[in-house]
């Protein structure tokens, strides 16, 4: 097609759209500039980053769906995924077009109003790929008209958002050494930032930024310092070489401070701290990095010398609050270790920390936020259990209610076992194991993912809850219990609604102020992503993924 023909056909398209009305207008996706990403809150019709904006609040200012009409939500469309297994992806929505990944590394572009697919990109992973905990991918990032996806074999691929064709493809790390990328990248200015997984196989993790146009590496922050680097004195001998420190979920960004925040995963081996004496920085920490250089500005470690796999695999939620009467730029963090933290995000200073579930691995936190560890005797139960008080599930913060919302596991504990293990390439580097505490021997227990439509493990081994926490006090405001545990993220709205799901396949709308159930839909499959909201042609949609189905809801038309 020649240029002039193309131009003429565009004109025809536009004229046709004008003549026939907006409902059949082509989706005129504009360039997603860094400025648009900065001001994502000003275009709530779109969902431009994994967490719905750099502050990662997963809060929408769209107000069409309210507590009064939420019962009128109806399913508008369903996209059936083509692969089995946990579908953890958060879709992006850009000017009416949705971009979602599915296992192992497919990207689909679809009409966010109808669910019909424009194109599909399939990435062929190397057979060498070695990824912990499932062939997961949590989504794409966008800059201009280019999408970015990390892959199981630790590549980063740039993809044309209009036609799904790859633009560049670089190796972020060596998949033969068990590096992988499962998170949704984060675009900051002219760079795309990713982190790597693989601590269960003895990697040394890192966060790295790449030029959006070329894929050339701009900076890299290693989560396990080398000898001589700051923090290396928290490692003994050569334990740092396979020290772990995965990055499993997308970071956040404060443009005023020009800092990007990333949660770092567990040390290796997972369960045997005896063979890696020291605090093992920067595992189980949040790191604040200069967005232009990757230089470490500050860190805060939640779980030094971790024996429980309590990795800081959570999204940093940024909020501006009044603490003790003074305005404060804070970071809110409900950690896998069972404590809810409030940090000063400019300095990393610990402001507050309180347990949000039962905790007995530590008796509390000292004035600097360091846990006072109380290891349980061998054979005794440790709370929270191995999957933690929460895990990678995206929390939400509502500036309206001032509350932080997190999916938690309650009544869930593990017996841990330490075992010396030398690193060997190609093998898990776990250093022991754990067993979920069950009421009787051999009883079914909870683990990673729902395995059956029949819950024969019951709440006797743990159950899920949405917990609303007040950052000003650290205390629980309300709780919504679920019978099975939950891996669902949370969305809140400017109309004080809270949307979340769970392993049972129920999709719930709660009153964000009280936790009261206002609406629910039984979608049949486990919800292990986080809901999003967007608007097309004047209609607000709420979308989530249950089992193998991506479902989008909106209010039914008035009769």
């Amino acid at each position, binding site marked *: 097609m020649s240029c002039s023909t193309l131009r003429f056909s565009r004109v025809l398209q536009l004229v046709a759209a004008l003549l026939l009305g907006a409902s059949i207008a082509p989706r005129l996706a504009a360039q997603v500039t860094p400025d648009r990403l900065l001001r994502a809150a000003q275009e709530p019709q779109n969902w431009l980053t994994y967490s719905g904006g750099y502050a990662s609040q997963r809060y929408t200012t769209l107000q069409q769906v309210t507590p009064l009409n939420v019962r009128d939500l109806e399913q508008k469309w369903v996209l059936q995924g083509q692969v089995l297994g946990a579908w953890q992806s958060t879709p992006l929505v850009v000017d009416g077009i949705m971009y979602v990944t599915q296992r192992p590394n497919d990207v689909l572009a679809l009409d966010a109003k109808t669910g019909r697919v424009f194109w599909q990109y399939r990435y062929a992973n190397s057979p060498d790929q*070695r990824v912990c905990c499932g062939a997961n991918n949590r989504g794409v990032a966008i800059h201009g008209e280019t999408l970015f996806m990390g892959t199981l074999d630790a590549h980063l691929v740039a993809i044309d958002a209009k036609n799904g064709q790859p633009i560049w493809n670089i190796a972020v790390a060596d998949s033969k050494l068990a590096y992988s990328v499962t998170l949704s990248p984060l675009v900051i200015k002219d760079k795309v930032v990713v982190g790597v997984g693989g601590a269960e196989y003895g990697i040394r993790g890192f966060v790295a930024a790449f030029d959006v146009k070329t894929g050339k590496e701009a900076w890299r922050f290693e989560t396990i310092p080398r000898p001589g680097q700051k923090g290396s004195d928290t490692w003994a001998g050569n334990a740092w070489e396979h020290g772990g420190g995965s990055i499993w979920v997308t970071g956040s960004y404060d443009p005023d401070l020009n800092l990007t925040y990333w949660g770092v995963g567990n040390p290796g081996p997972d369960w045997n701290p005896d063979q890696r004496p020291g605090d093992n920085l920067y595992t189980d920490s949040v790191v604040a990095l200069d967005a232009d250089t990757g230089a470490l500005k500050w860190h805060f470690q939640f779980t030094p010398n971790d024996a429980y796999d309590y990795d800081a695999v959570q999204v940093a939620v940024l909020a501006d609050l009044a603490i003790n009467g003074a305005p404060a730029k804070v970071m809110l963090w409900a950690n896998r270790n069972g404590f809810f933290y409030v940090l000063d995000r400019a300095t990393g200073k610990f402001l507050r920390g309180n347990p949000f579930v039962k905790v007995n691995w530590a008796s509390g936190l000292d004035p600097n936020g360091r846990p006072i560890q109380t290891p349980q005797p061998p054979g005794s139960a440790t709370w929270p259990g191995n999957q933690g008080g929460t895990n990678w599930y995206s929390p939400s913060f509502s500036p309206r209610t001032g509350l932080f919302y997190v999916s938690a596991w309650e009544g869930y504990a593990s017996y841990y076992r330490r075992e010396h293990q030398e690193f060997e390439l190609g093998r898990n580097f776990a250093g022991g194991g754990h067993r979920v505490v069950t009421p009787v021997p051999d009883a079914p227990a909870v683990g990673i993912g729902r395995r059956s439509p029949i819950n024969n493990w019951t709440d006797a081994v743990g159950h899920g809850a949405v917990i609303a926490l007040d950052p000003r006090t650290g205390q629980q405001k309300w709780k919504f*219990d679920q019978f099975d545990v939950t891996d669902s993220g949370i969305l809140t709205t400017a109309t004080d609604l809270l949307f979340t799901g769970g392993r049972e396949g129920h999709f719930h709308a709660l009153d964000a102020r009280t936790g009261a159930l206002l609406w629910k839909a039984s979608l049949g499959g486990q919800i292990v992503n986080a809901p999003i909201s967007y608007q097309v042609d004047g209609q607000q949609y709420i979308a989530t993924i249950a089992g193998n189905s991506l479902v989008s809801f909106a209010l039914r038309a008035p009769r």
Partner: protein
Amino acid sequence: MIRTLSWLAVLGACVGTVRLDAQALTQDHSYTRADVEAGQRLYGPQCQVCHGATGDGVPGIDLRLGRFRRSSSDDDLARIITSGIAGAGMPGFKLQPAELTGIIAFIRAGFDAASASVRLGNAERGKALFEGKAVCAQCHRVKGQGPRVAPDLSEIGAIRTLASLQRTLLNPTESLLPINRPVRIVTKDGRTIRGRRLNEDTYTVQLIDSQERLHSLVKADLKEFVVETTATMPSYQGRLTADELADVIAYLTTLKGL
């Protein structure tokens, strides 16, 4: 050579009437108890992260029960463990030959290294006890015969270890799986329902009642919903002799489903 006799084969010989099942047909190697124990030690650090402590952590797969997506023979298992499955999240593992043997032995032994100490008697006598003196058949159904009030035992020999069977017979309350706990429900309209849960979620519960009727109830419609923790099944400690107990367990191990 006696030392290398298959541990499972020894059990089979003890039971006497064990029929060949799918697992036996596809298990084409013999394993020692030492193999099983070696596999048990390796399973925690290498496999448990994804497959779970009970082997059913990955949908569609139950390692303990020998349910796989792709493999059936031991050689299939060995190939998948060492090569992985690209795109499915299963990595290849670099294991020594003895370790590989151990993992497969542990899987084939149903994750049960403890059961070797459980004594097995005569399955024919056990069947007679089950239907007679022990009155098991008054509550449990087997192969289409008997009531449905208690769990159907037609495949209990495939889904429970010997140690678990013995534990349940001797101390049913402390072995009672949470889902099998008796429930007592009073609906808002005053009906009382006693039975056993089949499934439950946040809003509903599915159960079979004492008259073998299936109910799916909305919790918001219930006035009372009590889950008892005491088993209705009696303990057979003292009710059966040690030999009789061994006979009943031997019979239960023959129940492997269709």
